[in-house]
C-alpha cells in the first residue's frame, strides 16, 4: 500500500477543534515524538549532561524535572514533579524543578477537551472525541497555563516521562553490569542489582542512558503501588517563598539594568491628542521618555520610583473612547444585545415556550447582573527585557511563554530562535499573565535602550486600569417547577466575547459562537426536560480576558441563584432539589452534594443559631464542586462564618495542596461577590488601587473546610473550580439570613459585610 494511502486511512478530522484551529491534522505526524528543547540549551554542552526526554535533565548535581507550567501559586511544579518521581523512583528530598524554556514541545494536550462536548459526558464516544482533541492541541503547540488543565495534561505525560527514563537508566545499568535488565530494581535515584547489592546512581548512568531509545509510553504503575501520588509532599517552591529569595520578574537583576514604567491611554483604544513630556524628561534620574505607538509613553530611569514620578509628570490630552463613557452607557449596550441575533445556543431540549405558555402564575423570572472585574494580582505587571546583538531576552511571569515569544517575533518579523523567554515565578496569575501586553511593551522599550536590559514595572494604578477584564454579564431567566425539580429553564446571557476581544490583540482566531459566555450555565448536569440557553455578545473596545474560572465565574452565580429561587418558589429544600437533577451523573454528582450536606449538618436554610445557610453546586473544569456557606448578622454587618466545600477531582495528587487551591478559589470568588467591581466614568476605569477596589482580608476570612472525593472518571485540575459556587452560595446564604435576594454584584451595594 502506498504511504499516501496509509496516511489517508489514518487521518482524522476533529470537527469542532479543527475549525477552531483552522486546520486539519493527521495522526501520522501526531505520533512522532516532540523535539527535546533541552538539547538546544547551554547546559547541554557540558560533558556530563543528559536529557532523557523533554522533562528530565540529569547532570552531576542530580535529576532536574522540567515542569513547564507557570508556577503562580497553584503548586504545579511540585504536582508535576510528583508524577515524574512516582515512576522514576526519585527521593523527594533531592527533587529539583525548573520551568524550562518556551517551547511548543510543552503544549497542553487537554486544553481543547472542553470542545468535545460537556464535561459530564463520559460516554465512550465523548471520551474518544475528547482524546482526539489532543491531536490539534499538539499541532497548535500552545504552552499555556490555564483552564485548570495542567494536572490533567501532565497526569499521563509526566508519569510516562519518568517511566521511560527509568527504563533507559535500567537498561544502561544492565549493559554496564552485563546482566538482564529485568533482574534490576530502582530506588531513590539508583539502579540496584538485588543479586549482589551493587548500585549505580542515575547521575553516573545518565549519559549512557541518553543513547538508549526507550519507548515513550511504557506501562505505568498501578495506583496501588503509588508512593507519592495521593500523599502530601513539601512543595519545592515554598522555602524560597519564605526567605525572600524566590525570583519574580520584578526581582530579576541584570548587569547595567535600567528601570522603567509605562503611562498608557486611560481610554482603551484612544490615542494621544497632544502631550508635553518636557517636565518628565528634565526630572532627576530620567534617561528618556519613549512614545509607545499612539497608546502612551514609557519612562526609562535609574530607579523605579523616579520613573513613576516622571510618568506622573507627563501631560497628555487623550482622545475620546469609542465606547460609551460610563457604566450605565456600557451596560445599555449589554441590554441592547438581547435584541440581536444570539451568538450561540446551548443545551436545547424539549420545548420551553410550550411549557411557559401554560405556566400562568407559576412562571418564575429573574434578571442577574455582574460587573467587569480586574485580576489584581499582587505583583503588578512586570517584565525585564534586553535587545542586543540580534537577540531578545525577556524575563517574565508568563502564563503563555510560547504566546509571548510568538507575539514578540510577530511584532518585528524576527527569526525563529532569536527570542528567548525566561519564565520566572508569577506574583499571581489568575489568567492575567496569559496576555502578552506587558511582555510586548517591555520589548518595545528595550529596543530603545541601546542594548541595556530594562525592568518595566507597572504601577498598581496602571495595572488596575489597563487590565483585560472579566467581562460584565447579564442573565435573564425564566423557569417553571415540577413538584420536586425544575420542569423548564430558559436563559439568555449577554456578555462580551473573550475570544473576539483576544482576536483583536493576538493571533487567537475569533471563533464566532463563544462557548465561554455560557459555560457554567451550559454544561450543568441538569436532568431537566425543557432547557434553552441563548447567548448574546455585546461588542465594545474594552479588553476582556480570562479571569479565574472565566464564564463560570458569573454563570455559577446566575445559575445557582436561579436554582435557589426556583426551590424557594415551591418551599423546597435546595439540597434535596439538586439531588433530583443529576440524571446521567448519578451517583458521582449526588455524592458531592451529599458530602457537603453531611459536613455542614444541613437541615435547611436556617442555621441553629439563627444564621443563614446558602448552598450551591457548579460543575466547572470537569470538577463537581458543592459548597455551603454560613452567615450571621452582627452589629458591623454580615459575617461569613464558615464555608464547607466538597469537590470531586478524580485522582487527588496532593490533598494538602488541593485544599489550599480550593480555599484560594473560594476567597477569590468571595472577594468578587462582596466588593469586586470595575466601573467607568469619562471612558476611564474608576478604580485605581486597593483602597477603592478592596480585596478580602484575614479578619473577613471564614474557616473553610474542604473534602476531596475521587469518584470522577477523569482527573481534573483544581485552580478554578472552587470559585464559581462560592459566589451564589454566599448570595443564597444572605437570602436565607435576610430574605433579601441579591441579583446584582457586588453585594456591598445592597448589604454591609464585616
Amino acid at each position, binding site marked *: 500500500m502506498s504511504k499516501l494511502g496509509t496516511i489517508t486511512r489514518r487521518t482524522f478530522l476533529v470537527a469542532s477543534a479543527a475549525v477552531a484551529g483552522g486546520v486539519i491534522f493527521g495522526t501520522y505526524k501526531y505520533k512522532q515524538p516532540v523535539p527535546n528543547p533541552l538539547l538546544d540549551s547551554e547546559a547541554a554542552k557540558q560533558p556530563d549532561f543528559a536529557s532523557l526526554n523533554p522533562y528530565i535533565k540529569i547532570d552531576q548535581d542530580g535529576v532536574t524535572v522540567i515542569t513547564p507550567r507557570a508556577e503562580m501559586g497553584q503548586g504545579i511544579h511540585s504536582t508535576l514533579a510528583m508524577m515524574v518521581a512516582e515512576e522514576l523512583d526519585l527521593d523527594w528530598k533531592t527533587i529539583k524543578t525548573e520551568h524550562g524554556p518556551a517551547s511548543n514541545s510543552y503544549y497542553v494536550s487537554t486544553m481543547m477537551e472542553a470542545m468535545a462536548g460537556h464535561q459530564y459526558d463520559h460516554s465512550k464516544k465523548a471520551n474518544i472525541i475528547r482524546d482526539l482533541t489532543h491531536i490539534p492541541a499538539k499541532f497548535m503547540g500552545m504552552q499555556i497555563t490555564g483552564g485548570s488543565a495542567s494536572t490533567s495534561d501532565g497526569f499521563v505525560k509526566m508519569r510516562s516521562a519518568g517511566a521511560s527514563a527509568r527504563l533507559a537508566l535500567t537498561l544502561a545499568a544492565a549493559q554496564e553490569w552485563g546482566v538482564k535488565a529485568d533482574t534490576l530494581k530502582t530506588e531513590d535515584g539508583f539502579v540496584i542489582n538485588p543479586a549482589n547489592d551493587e548500585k549505580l546512581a542515575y547521575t553516573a548512568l545518565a549519559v549512557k542512558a541518553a543513547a538508549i531509545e526507550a519507548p515513550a509510553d511504557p506501562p505505568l504503575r498501578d495506583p496501588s503501588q503509588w508512593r507519592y501520588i495521593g500523599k502530601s509532599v513539601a512543595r519545592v517552591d515554598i522555602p524560597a517563598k*519564605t*526567605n525572600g529569595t524566590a525570583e519574580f520578574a520584578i526581582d530579576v537583576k541584570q548587569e547595567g539594568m535600567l528601570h522603567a514604567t509605562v503611562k498608557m491611554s486611560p481610554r482603551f483604544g484612544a490615542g494621544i491628542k497632544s502631550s508635553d513630556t518636557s517636565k518628565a524628561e528634565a526630572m532627576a534620574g530620567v534617561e528618556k521618555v519613549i512614545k509607545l505607538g499612539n497608546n502612551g509613553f514609557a519612562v526609562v530611569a535609574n530607579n523605579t*520610583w523616579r520613573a513613576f514620578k516622571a510618568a506622573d509628570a507627563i501631560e497628555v490630552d487623550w482622545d475620546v473612547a469609542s465606547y460609551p463613557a460610563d457604566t450605565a452607557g456600557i451596560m445599555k449596550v449589554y441590554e441592547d444585545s438581547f435584541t440581536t441575533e444570539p451568538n450561540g445556543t446551548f443545551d436545547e431540549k424539549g420545548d420551553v415556550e410550550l411549557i411557559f405558555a401554560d405556566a400562568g402564575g407559576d412562571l418564575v423570572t429573574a434578571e442577574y447582573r455582574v460587573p467587569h472585574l480586574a485580576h489584581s494580582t499582587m505583583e503588578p505587571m512586570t517584565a525585564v527585557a534586553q535587545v542586543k546583538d540580534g537577540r531578545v531576552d525577556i524575563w517574565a511571569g508568563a502564563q503563555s511563554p510560547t504566546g509571548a515569544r510568538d507575539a514578540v517575533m510577530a511584532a518585528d518579523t524576527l527569526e525563529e530562535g532569536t527570542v528567548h523567554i525566561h519564565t520566572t515565578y508569577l506574583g499571581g496569575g489568575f489568567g492575567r499573565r496569559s496576555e502578552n501586553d506587558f511582555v510586548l511593551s517591555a520589548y518595545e522599550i528595550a529596543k530603545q535602550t541601546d542594548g541595556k536590559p530594562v525592568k518595566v514595572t507597572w504601577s*498598581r494604578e496602571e495595572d488596575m486600569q489597563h487590565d483585560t477584564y472579566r467581562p460584565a454579564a447579564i442573565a435573564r431567566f425564566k423557569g417553571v417547577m415540577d413538584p420536586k425539580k425544575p420542569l423548564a429553564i430558559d436563559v439568555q446571557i449577554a456578555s462580551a466575547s473573550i475570544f473576539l476581544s483576544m482576536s483583536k490583540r493576538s493571533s487567537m482566531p475569533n471563533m464566532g459562537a463563544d462557548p465561554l459566555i455560557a459555560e457554567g450555565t451550559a454544561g450543568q448536569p441538569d436532568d431537566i426536560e425543557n432547557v434553552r440557553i441563548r447567548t448574546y455578545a455585546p461588542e465594545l473596545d474594552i479588553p476582556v480576558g480570562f479571569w479565574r474560572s472565566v464564564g463560570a465565574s458569573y454563570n455559577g452565580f446566575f445559575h445557582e441563584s436561579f436554582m435557589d429561587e426556583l426551590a424557594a418558589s415551591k418551599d423546597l429544600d435546595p439540597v434535596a432539589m439538586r439531588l433530583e437533577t443529576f440524571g446521567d451523573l448519578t451517583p458521582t454528582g449526588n455524592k458531592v452534594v451529599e458530602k457537603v450536606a453531611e459536613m455542614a449538618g444541613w437541615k435547611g436554610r436556617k442555621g441553629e443559631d439563627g444564621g443563614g445557610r446558602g448552598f450551591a453546586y457548579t460543575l466547572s473544569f470537569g470538577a463537581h464542586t458543592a459548597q455551603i456557606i454560613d452567615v450571621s448578622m452582627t452589629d458591623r454587618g454580615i459575617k461569613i462564618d464558615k464555608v464547607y466545600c466538597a469537590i470531586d477531582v478524580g485522582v487527588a495528587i496532593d490533598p494538602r495542596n488541593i485544599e*489550599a487551591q480550593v480555599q484560594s478559589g473560594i476567597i477569590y470568588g468571595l*472577594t468578587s461577590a462582596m466588593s469586586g467591581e470595575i466601573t467607568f466614568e469619562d471612558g476611564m476605569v474608576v478604580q485605581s488601587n*486597593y483602597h477603592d477596589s478592596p480585596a478580602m482580608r484575614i*479578619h473577613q476570612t471564614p474557616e473553610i473546610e474542604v473534602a476531596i472525593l475521587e469518584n470522577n472518571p477523569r482527573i481534573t485540575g483544581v485552580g478554578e473550580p472552587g470559585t464559581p459556587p462560592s459566589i451564589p452560595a454566599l448570595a443564597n446564604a444572605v437570602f436565607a439570613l435576610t430574605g433579601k435576594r441579591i441579583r446584582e454584584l457586588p453585594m456591598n451595594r445592597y448589604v454591609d459585610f464585616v
Partner: protein
Amino acid sequence: MSINTKLNVNGKDHEVSVEPEMPLLWVLRDEIGLTGTKFGCGIAQCGACTVHVDGQAIRSCSYPVGQIKGKVTTIEGLGSPDVMSKVQEAWIEAQTPQCGYCQSGQIMSAAALLSANPNPTDDDIDRAMAGNICRCGAYPRIRAAIHAAAKSMQEA
C-alpha cells in the same frame, strides 16, 4: 535633590545618594538590591512592602527614607536561607505560601506581632495582619502558621 543618607539594613551599614522623600522600598530594591521586599500598591494598602524599623512593622512603600531613624530589618535579615527564623519555619511547616509574592510582608508583620505578643489570639492576629492582602487567599494557613510559630517560640 539627592543627598547622602546612611542606613543600617540587616545589621549592615549602607550609604546611598537619593532624594530624602524616596520611599524606603525603592532604596532597598533598586539602590541596595534587596528584592525580598515587594512592591504591591505604593499607598500602604496591601502590606507587601512590610519591613521592620527597630522591630516595628512599617510599610516601606510609603515611608520616606529621610525619615528613617532606626535599624531596618527586611525578610533577608529575619533569617538566612540556611537558618530560618521560627516564624519562617512555621510558614514552611504549614505550607503557607501560594504564589508567594505577599509572603515577605506577611511574615514581617507576623514576626512583629509575635515579638510584641508571644501568644496572640485570633482577634490579635486579625488586628495585626489586616493590613496585609493575599490575593491567593492563603489566610487560613497564615493564621495557622502564626499560632504554630507562637507555640514553637514558647517551647524554645
